[in-house]
């Protein structure tokens, strides 16, 4: 029955016809049966996984805010009013804001120039995206402490340059995500034509960058900023190993001697993560392709 001389090309053509036919049937079916229901197994899987993911948060809230008999917000107020919490949060905010500004100010012009003029360097910059995996924070911490630690001739940790060390470390940790966010935005607009049009109207390169390029990649800059900020806010490894008392480091210490207040502050930390991701998701809705999860071991 089947033609023995049928060629691979004909088979492929035949398959394409079948797929097209199935597509047509499907469209017709969708028109008649508009509301298809979710299969039971999918609902069950989603409900069970919701329980798994919410349980630790619920248990944290119970541990922190329940005395066994009644509900109280006192540990949360204690935590928020605690001097150690406020100092460590201020330190975290300081490093996160400075890292974000530094990262945007350095990466945005660099990414623009790579796109416009230094395409040859692209491969080198693509390597950045795998950096968090090859050099995760624990390895970067060892490297930084070997080079700038107490036993090094270039002892930054015990000098007034100490803040620069952590900022530099956070720059390296966040640069892959920020570069990717800005680079995606740059590739979505025609950088070359925009720059040449701007130059032909008499604008210098700096003016072109600030007045033409920056406004057209603003969503990429916002998502890069959010990624840098949330990464630095939650960063524990570098801060702990190099000796900076940031919020996550304080969170670990306070749980050792004041567990209820500590668990209340875990809720605060969760809210910070939540706010960052919600903001990123809002940006992603307007600019598809925005990366929400930074990935890489922490």
């Amino acid at each position, binding site marked *: 029955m089947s033609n023995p001389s049928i060629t691979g090309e004909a088979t492929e053509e035949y398959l394409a016809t079948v797929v097209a*036919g199935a597509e047509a049937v499907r469209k017709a079916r969708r028109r008649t049966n508009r509301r298809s229901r979710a299969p039971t197994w*999918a609902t069950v899987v*989603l409900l069970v996984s919701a329980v798994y993911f919410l349980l630790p948060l619920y248990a944290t809230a119970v541990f922190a805010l329940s005395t066994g008999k009644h509900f109280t917000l006192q540990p949360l107020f204690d935590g928020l009013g605690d001097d150690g919490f406020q100092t460590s949060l201020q330190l975290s905010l300081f490093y996160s804001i400075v890292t974000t500004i530094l990262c945007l100010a350095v990466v945005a012009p660099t990414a623009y120039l790579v796109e416009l003029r230094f395409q040859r360097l692209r491969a080198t910059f693509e390597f950045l995206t795998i950096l968090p995996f090859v050099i995760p924070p624990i390895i970067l911490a060892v490297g930084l402490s*070997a080079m700038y630690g107490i036993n090094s001739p270039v002892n930054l940790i015990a000098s007034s340059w100490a803040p620069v060390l952590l900022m530099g470390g956070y720059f390296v940790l966040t640069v892959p995500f920020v570069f990717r966010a800005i680079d995606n935005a740059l590739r979505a607009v025609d950088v070359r034509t925009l720059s040449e049009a701007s130059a032909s109207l008499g604008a*210098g390169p700096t003016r072109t960058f600030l007045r033409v390029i920056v406004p057209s990649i603003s969503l990429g800059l916002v998502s890069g900023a959010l990624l840098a900020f949330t990464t630095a806010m939650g960063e524990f490894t570098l801060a702990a190993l190099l000796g900076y008392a940031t919020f996550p480091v304080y969170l*670990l210490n306070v749980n050792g001697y004041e567990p209820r207040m500590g668990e209340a502050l875990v809720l605060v930390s969760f809210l910070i993560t939540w706010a960052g991701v919600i903001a990123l998701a809002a940006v992603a809705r307007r600019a598809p392709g925005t990366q929400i999860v930074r990935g890489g071991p*922490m």
Partner: protein
Amino acid sequence: MRSSSSGTLAGASTAARRLGGRAALALLPFAVLITAFLLVPTLSLIWGSFHDSKTGAFTLTNYSYLQHPLDLVPFANSLELSLASTILGSVVGLLIAQAIVSSRRPLVQEIATTFSSVAANFAGVPLAFAFIATLGANGLLTRTLLNSGIDLYSGGFKLYSVLGLTIVYAYWEIPLMVLVMLPPLQAMKPSWREAAEILGASRWRYLRSVAIPILMTPFISSLLLLYANAFGAYATAYGLTTGFVALVPIEISNLINGDVSYDPGQADALAIGLAVIMAVCIGGRAILERRSTRWLAP
């Protein structure tokens, strides 16, 4: 008309030329930061791994852990933990991702994606304490199970064991798998299945001949991602155990921060071992991604 267009071209090329010298200069801040806080520390780490930390003489003893079975225990534990959490994370994550796709509700998809992003970012010290409140010796779930006659802790369970850590790591491994596998699963067209049905294929035959071959590459690639993520993770493990578990990242931190076990040279050598494992995973992933199937191309 003609004169204005040639004027534009002349203007553009002058602008590009004018950019030339200054452009290279504008890359300088990026180059300086990466050199100071990534390249130099990495080189110093490599140098340190081949030199005695006290005398500064060349030595290979820092790498002696490769010869002694006892010194390889952290590697064995990290390997076991990463393998277990990768298997758990990938199986459950794939199931949830398929459930999200099958639910066919845009709202469910949006909530599930956002929540996966939050959970995938919620790692480190806060996650550790959320699980202590859940499955610790005094945790909510532990006490609830005890009341219904199941004594986890007398049954040999410990949250800070490899098994306990696997459950905790799954909290971010599962949502990471969901986020990585959602795009390829969404790219699977229902008409492919219908075409297979029209050609007389059974459900199993469809899976074997269509779905599995197409999804194999992204699946293996995400296994490598999950594995590397678990292997290099430090903050969560440290938050749970305060350093009393023999994993590679914990061992490294004990060697640069510990009072008794202080030995930066050995920390450098262990860090190199860790980097090699991470590079193998991520290199494998890069090779797989290069041969991504044409069916999944957008």
